[in-house]
């Protein structure tokens, strides 16, 4: 924490990652897994949980070791810690569900290079005691999972007419195939960002009296 900056309460620390600093929608970090695996809600959620696990594990270790690791080799140390936890997750998912493992493929191992995790280790965990760091990591991880789920659900609903594999619409539904193809990932994330931009801009500009009564 930067000296002079107001210490956040525990709840604020937790909510920081879920809403105000959401890694997907606000910071736009760790986009590669977000777009690549978000073709369905199940995939997106498993990826979110895997990332959450790695984030929590590496945050705990980085925070505990924060006074031991020399500054010069800290990034290398962080990456090694993260890679260790990713290896654990990789084997864990393989043991739990082979179907999910096959669907996510190399992207589980690519959690190592998720800039969000390294960013947390560098910016927060290395400067805070374990409890506080874990709380922040939990918020960030949950925020990341929510973001992934939001994109995955939209893409699955529009692209396949399903959610969690259950058909939502009648048999006449024409799937919007482009949504489960690569361009759809960019479009859906872009659309979510647009929505948040719009919400923020509405909050930032004081409501003019003329618009005050305009109901849509």
């Amino acid at each position, binding site marked *: 924490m930067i000296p002079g900056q107001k210490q956040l309460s525990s709840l604020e620390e937790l909510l920081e990652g879920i809403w105000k600093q959401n890694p997907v929608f606000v910071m736009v970090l760790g986009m590669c897994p977000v777009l690549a695996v978000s073709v369905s809600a199940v995939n997106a959620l498993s990826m979110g949980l895997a990332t959450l696990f790695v984030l929590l594990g590496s945050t705990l270790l980085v925070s505990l070791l924060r006074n031991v690791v020399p500054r010069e080799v800290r990034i290398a140390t962080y990456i090694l810690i993260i890679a260790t936890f990713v290896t654990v997750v990789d084997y864990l998912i393989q043991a739990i569900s082979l179907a999910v493992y096959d669907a996510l493929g190399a992207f589980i191992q690519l959690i190592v290079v998720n800039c969000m995790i*390294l960013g947390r280790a560098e910016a927060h965990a290395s400067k805070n005691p374990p409890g506080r760091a874990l709380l922040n990591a939990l918020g960030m991880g949950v925020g990341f999972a929510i973001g992934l789920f939001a994109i995955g659900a939209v893409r699955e609903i529009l692209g396949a007419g399903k959610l969690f594999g259950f058909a939502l619409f009648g048999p006449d539904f024409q799937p919007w195939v482009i949504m489960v193809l690569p361009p759809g990932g960019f479009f859906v994330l872009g659309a979510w960002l647009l929505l948040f*931009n719009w919400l923020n801009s509405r909050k930032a500009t004081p409501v003019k009296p003329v618009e005050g009564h305009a109901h849509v």
Partner: protein
Amino acid sequence: MSESLSQIFIGTLLANNLVLAMFLGLCPFLGVSARLNTALPMGAATTFVMLVASLCAFGLNWLVTTFNLEFLRLIAYIVIIASAVQLVEMVLKKYSPVLFRALGIYLPLITTNCAVLGVALFQTARDYDFLQSVTFAVAGGAGFTLALLLMAGLRERLNLAIVPNVVQGTALSLMLAGLLSLAFMGFAGLGAGE
């Protein structure tokens, strides 16, 4: 797996472009693509790291499988990539300080560029032999550079366009990337398709 070298090259460069079809290396793709003159060196540096990483990964993979240490593969790859990036950084700093400063924070971040690790992981997963691995790495790097250049060109033009405030920033870049990706889908089936 018996894909010919030209199949791998064309397939990786266009049809399965690392950035636009497989979503690898999006951070530098969105971060460095604002100007054309930094996009090309960034692409070249990434390609070089990719090639070095791919060569080392090939050797490492052999080592790791011979001694039954598969669980160390990921950790070993990451260390190799980090060292390769360090090498590129030192060379650039010595021979082209201007470029070194222009690339700034994005140069060390090549370490966490998923495209580099992705190339190493995919070549292992697909059981490529030595020549196939090298082709794959070069084509991957070239594809990354191509996507970066196209995006930079588009964004330079876009700076002149008048867009609503709400749309500006990352949202617009993502929409643009979506359109570019849509265009690249036209290459589907070229080279090593399904």
